[in-house]
């Protein structure tokens, strides 16, 4: 995972990936997580590229029901 992460970081530096791309790359199902901006509490909008100043929280939405 660490090797893959490093490789991805290199790739990301050139093209500023969106969160959707990152979730996919790390095998996370976007249906199971909600991405919240920790500073503002707002939802992180789709299609926006990641920025180094962002503090995002991946909140699992699956519950026992």
């Amino acid at each position: 995972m660490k090797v893959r992460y490093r490789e991805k970081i290199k790739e990301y530096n050139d093209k500023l990936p969106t969160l959707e791309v990152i979730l996919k790359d790390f095998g996370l199902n976007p249906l199971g997580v909600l991405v919240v901006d920790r500073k503002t509490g707002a939802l992180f909008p789709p299609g926006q590229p990641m920025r180094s100043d962002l503090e995002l929280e991946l909140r699992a939405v699956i519950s026992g029901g």
Partner: protein
Amino acid sequence: MNIVKCKVCKQAEAIIKLENYRLNLCPGCFDDFVVRRVEKGIRHFRMFGHRDRVLVAVSGGKDSLGLWDLLLRLGYRADGFHIDLGIGSYSQESTRLCREFAEQRKLKLYVRSVPEEFGLGIREVARSVRRAPCSICGMLKRHLMNRTALDQGCDVLATGHNLDDEATSLFGNVLHWQEDYLARQFPVLPQVGAGLKRKVKPLIFVGEKEMAAYVTLKGIPYIYEECPMSKGAMSLHYKEILNQLELHSRGTKLFFLKIFLDEQRQRFQKAEDQQPALAPCTTCGTMTTAGLCAACRLREKLAERGAPGGRS
């Protein structure tokens, strides 16, 4: 910066992507979307009307608190009901969030406590009678919810089961061919006699992620933490499997559930017809297929084992 516009109003910036509907929505259009899905569920299944008194079972989680908020916004008369399960800090936080929600909106919240009524928390009750905690918890929740609705004169009991919960339950029941459960799986369970209140699931057409996004956008604090008793539960695995399917084939969950409810459920009616008739519990009056209801039997078992919550 790449700004994705809302697919409905085509003006505001989208803040959520609903993968299963191929929709990017702005806060206003997303709010309309959720409200319309709840209204659709209530009307489609004729769950209740504006004159009915609804008792909403709230756990402190996103679905139940979101449901309470949505029903009030839609103009329904809705009180809340919460059970303190006695699971340490998890239950304390759940109860605090429910009370806070009710107090801020000046709503009526009925709270029952498993430790107060049974002398033990859910984990200890389950251990005493050698049953799985989730099985005891489900049974006690059904019993206490129904008892409170009867005592408070409510017409209908509403729970926060969402589309994902129902599709998951259906998936599990089909995998194990639980015909009696399949026969009873429906978003409306009718009132039986004077002892069993009608039960409804108004979030039947709203997905889990949509509910999480709804309460986040509305600023409703909810408990993110999963119930510590549910670790390793098969339902969580089933949910993940269904989400994988949904990602590759959009609309799978809704199609699976809708076709079952509209067309396939009647196949299992025979299993329902073969169920023993319901009659009032000889002790508490709750409708049951045995002489004594499951909650009263539990009290007796606890008494046999000398547990504090047993009937003396």
